[in-house]
């Protein structure tokens, strides 16, 4: 037991090796502790007892559905797409002045003839629009008239009117 005394002394001097400390703990956990060492038994029991102290429960908070950050490469694609569309619009639809006539060379084809005078082209277009309007108006008139006839010839309405008249006559007779 001299060995235990030595280890114990070294322990209190802070000079014990981990293996010696393990041996000391095992000794004090056993039922063979000598009376002269009994005084130190509570110390080692206290260490074991403290090791049994458990933490309170920690509830992990529910994870929020974090929105994933928009990837940079997607931003680049979006920017490139916008740039491409803008370029396309500028190319296909050139800038026009306030009166709506292109500022560059003017050329339209009317009935296979080249017309370079914007006013003449405009007059021709107006005339064409007026003719189109007249055609639509005259074409639409028979349709309106047909609708009126269809309304007047409505079978349900005619039968309703007839049944009302019959009822009236019968009531007068009685």
């Amino acid at each position, binding site marked *: 037991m001299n060995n235990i005394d030595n280890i114990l002394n070294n322990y209190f001097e*802070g000079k014990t090796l981990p293996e010696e400390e393990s041996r000391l703990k095992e000794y004090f956990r056993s039922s063979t502790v000598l009376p002269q060492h009994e005084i130190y038994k509570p110390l080692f029991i206290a260490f074991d007892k403290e090791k049994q102290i458990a933490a309170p429960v920690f509830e992990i908070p529910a994870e929020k559905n974090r929105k994933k950050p928009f990837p940079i490469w997607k931003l680049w694609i979006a920017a490139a797409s916008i740039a491409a569309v803008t370029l396309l619009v500028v190319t296909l639809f050139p800038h026009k002045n306030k009166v709506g006539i292109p500022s560059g060379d003017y050329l339209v084809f009317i009935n296979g003839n080249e017309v370079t005078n914007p006013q003449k082209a405009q007059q021709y277009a107006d005339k064409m629009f007026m003719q189109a309007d007249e055609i639509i108006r005259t074409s639409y008139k028979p349709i309106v008239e047909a609708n009126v006839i269809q309304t007047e010839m409505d079978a349900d309405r005619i039968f309703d009117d007839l049944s009302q008249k019959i009822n009236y006559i019968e009531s007068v007779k009685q």
Partner: protein
Amino acid sequence: MCMNAQQFQHQILCYSDKLYRMARSVLKDESLSQDAYQELMMRLWEKRGQLEIIENQQAFVLTSMRNLCIDWLRKQQPNGEIPANATYPAPGPHQLTEEADTVNTISRMIDLLPEMQRTIVRMKDVEEMEVKEIAEIMSITENAVTVNLSRARKKLREMILTHQQQEKLLYEQHR
């Protein structure tokens, strides 16, 4: 990549008991220790995205726990805690009957040690950590750990012997 709940459970919550015991050792108050533990866990959960890159997670979380508790201790006791040269007060007869459990008496004796000494003695003798690990957590040299451990154990021995003498004296007085 951000740590999910399962990873947090495996990598951080596995140190729960050690963290809570560390809080109890520093704060010496059960209720306050529970609050400090919950506070740290919540902070760790919020910062879980940064925990993956930490090499020694055990050392990191234990250091964080100790620092948080020391901050709380400073807020509560601006003048500091028990001085380093505090001695174990002789128990009265009333205390002796109440403290029949000598194991609790030992825990009280450890609590009388200065914060650094009691934390080191508990990390060594309760948590069975190596001097190198303790040095990393406490941010001191291994030699400083050994010196503090030696001082703490010597004081504990003194307190145990004093307590035994007081008990004998009281026992003879009441015979």
